[in-house]
């Protein structure tokens, strides 16, 4: 690969990185030929054009915190394209509740800017402090707040996308309502960079709530976590998050019981009343009540629960089936090396039907791969039979290769394949390709 072609496009020192440490920008121990840091949309367009001409496999990235996430391990990556240097907040109009920013802005940087206007972007994805907004949108990454505020797709008003074949598409706008033409913007969220590089975003903002309160409940035999969360969910009020935390998560020192954390973001006048409604609904007292900064910090700790995990899985289901799924995690316990005494950890956003499963100490004996593969595929089959899905977000390379990040796409495979060809006709962005196709796509006019 001739990196001089890249240096002609990116003249500033440090924009083309060829020699880096073994762990930097690592893709399962291997590294791309180069990591590039464009400063402008024009540079992104030029890089993708050169990549197309030379058939270089290219991986869009932010700060590289989830570089191996959902990766197709069968293909080598020639080039990592990081938008982390495109990190300016361009326009913030508090009166119109929107902000326009370059996609390399981190969520932490954005929230700090918004705070002075008493506004915020209600997203709390894993790794929130260092994640870039482009990566958060591309991976549709979200945490507990998705219950009350929705996923990244619900906050994006507009975006600039440079497609795999180097076209610049301006999508959406700056207003909340916008139905001018087909909503291509929705395709960006959860695309994992497969449709192009997001360079700019317009995000919808919300007023910063006056009060932030978390009620932490302890589960027991009479009130098992999923049952408790289910009861809380039926409180006659809008709750911003309801999370079930396995032993070993959330508290310091780590708890030995399953906890249920409910976050209330309201006006000062309303927060007590919402709490009263919850307590009336569940008829037990919380173990702990946290207000303001303490409440915020509690959830911030949850952002990073997966940073030392060997395996991270996202399971989706109907909210009413979260408890069944948690029970099924027992079948994965034998995959854990008994080091910290907690076994499988999980974090469930129960009203959204999302269960994040963490294996911190994956057993690595001689049969680990066979056993892990068998257990995860069995779980995936069970989840899919109940109408849900299992995504292997992060795992050792051999396990990803065996299990694949995503399960069967069933009847929508053709649509997925067709959309990929629209945005990336030569397939240079296919490092996170979805499962192999059964068909070659439809014949188009």
């Amino acid at each position, binding site marked *: 690969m001739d990196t001089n072609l890249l240096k002609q496009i990116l003249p500033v020192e440090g924009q083309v990185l060829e020699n880096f440490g073994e762990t930097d920008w690592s893709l399962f121990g291997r590294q791309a030929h180069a990591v590039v840091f464009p400063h402008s949309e024009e540079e992104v367009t030029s890089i993708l054009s050169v990549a197309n001409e030379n058939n270089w496999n290219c991986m869009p990235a932010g700060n590289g915190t989830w570089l191996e996430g959902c990766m197709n391990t069968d293909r080598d990556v020639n080039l990592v394209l990081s938008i982390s240097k495109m990190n300016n907040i361009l326009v913030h109009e*508090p*009166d*119109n*509740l*929107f902000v326009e920013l370059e996609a390399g802005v981190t969520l932490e940087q954005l929230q700090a800017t918004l705070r002075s206007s008493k506004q915020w972007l209600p997203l709390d994805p894993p790794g929130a402090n260092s994640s870039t907004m482009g990566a958060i949108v591309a991976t549709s990454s979200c945490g507990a707040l998705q219950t009350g505020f*929705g996923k990244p*797709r619900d906050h994006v008003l507009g975006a600039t996308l440079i497609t795999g074949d180097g*076209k610049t*598409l301006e999508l959406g*706008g*700056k*207003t*909340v*309502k916008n*139905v*001018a*033409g*087909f*909503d*291509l913007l*929705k*395709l960006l969220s959860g*695309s*994992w960079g497969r449709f192009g590089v997001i360079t700019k975003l317009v995000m919808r903002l919300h*007023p*910063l709530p006056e009060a932030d309160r978390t009620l932490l409940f302890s589960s027991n035999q009479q009130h098992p976590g999923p049952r408790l969360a289910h009861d809380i969910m039926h*409180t*006659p*009020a*809008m709750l911003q998050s309801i999370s079930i935390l396995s032993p070993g998560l959330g508290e310091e020192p780590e708890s030995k019981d399953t906890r249920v954390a409910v976050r209330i973001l309201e*006006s000062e*006048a*309303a927060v*007590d*009343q919402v709490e009263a409604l919850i307590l009336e609904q569940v008829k037990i007292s919380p173990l702990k009540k946290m207000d303001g900064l303490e409440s915020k910090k509690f959830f911030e700790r949850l952002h990073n629960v997966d940073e030392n995990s060997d395996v991270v899985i*996202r399971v*989706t289901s*109907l*909210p009413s*089936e979260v408890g069944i799924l948690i029970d099924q995690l027992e079948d994965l316990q034998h995959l854990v090396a008994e080091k910290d005494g907690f076994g499988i950890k999980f974090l469930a956003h129960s*009203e959204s*039907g999302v269960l994040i499963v963490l294996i911190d100490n994956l057993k690595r004996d001689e049969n680990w791969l066979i056993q892990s593969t068998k257990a995860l595929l069995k779980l995936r089959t069970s989840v*899919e039979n109940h*109408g*849900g*899905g299992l995504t292997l977000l992060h795992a050792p390379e051999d396990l990803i290769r065996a299990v694949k990040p*995503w399960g069967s*796409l*069933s*009847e*929508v495979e053709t*649509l*997925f394949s*067709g*959309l990929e060809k*629209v945005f990336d006709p030569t397939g240079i962005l296919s490092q996170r390709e979805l*499962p192999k196709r059964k068909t070659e796509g*439809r*014949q188009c*006019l």
Partner: protein
Amino acid sequence: MESLPKNLARDLKDIVGSNWVLSDRDRLLAYESDGLTAYRSKPLAVVLPETTDQVSRVFKLLSRNNIKVVPRGAGTGLSGGALADPTAVIIGTSKMNTIIKLDPDNRRAVVQPGVINAHVSEAAAPLGLYYAPDPSSQSACTIGGNVAENSGGPHCLKYGVTSRYVTGLTIVTYEGEILRLGGLGRERGSYDLVGVFVGSEGCFGMATEVEVKLLPKPESVRTLLAIFDRIEDAGKAVTSIMARGLLPAALEIIDGATIRAVEASVFAGGYPVDANAALVVEFDGIEKGLGADVQKAISDCKKAGATEVRSAATSEERQKLWQGRKKAFGAMGRIATDLLVQDATVPRSRLPEVLMKISEIGERYDLNIANVFHAGDGNLHPNILFDRSDSQELQKVELASTEIMKVCVAAGGTITGEHGVGHDKKSYMPLVCGVDEMKTMKKVKTVFDPYHGMNPGKVLPTDI
């Protein structure tokens, strides 16, 4: 006019029943336009299936015969999206009107596309739940139509538009293939096919089952009506309320011309007829929080120059305040034979200047333009009153509409907030989309509809 071939009519009747294939000219009259009556065209036929399987079989038959199809809900759309040319067949959803499932445990409902929007909330009410998107036509419009148009409504300021509430779809493609997209907790792969289908205006396929998210009914609702001498002052009140961090469920402005039309009609809401603007402010949520919010909003309205601020004390009063807003379009029938309900959005802070420019455009073309709109999210509805039989006036309406769109786009807005592009606005698409964007949209349509048999001639300009 072309007529439906006899053998095709027979085969269609075999699928849906002999009463549900309409091809007589008289019976097609009701389908010659949607809510935008400026464009009229009778379809080749209308077919009214009852199930997904029937839709699939009908589509297979029509696509094999190379006949294009136009899905249609209640026909309340305002962009000509359900307009069919004489060679196309309309597939109506009026018989697909069953609420298939109400699932309070998971706060969702699964409905057929012909279910009327308001009926979902009515059915969910005993469970303490409701469906949030509330287009002004919610007592008549269908969920299928809402999905096609990604409909909004007054309460979308706080709760968001249709796409936020549609979690899964069963669709039928032009070739008759039945596909299931999304579904609550049913993440397969990661591309948001539901998201891109919602708002596709019947051009990708037809939704035959819709899974929607329901919300808990708010404990309390408080509604205010503020009266202003100047519409700009009402706009300032909106800016102040939002700038202080309040998030009302709805913020709606009704101008003087609309007030007088409503008050002269059976929909009278008790607004003072000498006012030049009325602002409806609604808060919902937990009772204890509302009182403080309401007081802050009253203060903002008074500071902006409100001459009077009323608070609805009872549910009946609240309904009456909303009646004036929601029935405004109907009331205008008293003052003109025809009405063009325009739809555009601008950033909220630009509302006062854009309203002034719209007023100037009306004066310049000697047209009556009344404004009633979702001020909180900058979604304008300039209503142009005219007489369709006057060809010169019709031409002025088209010119004025184009100018209004250009003004909104120049202010950082767009050509449609919630009514869709349909047939009416496809020529405006280049104002907000580049050629590459429109070509990409066409390619994405082609992925869903390779033979371009779904709702032809809509959304994108023909030369794309």
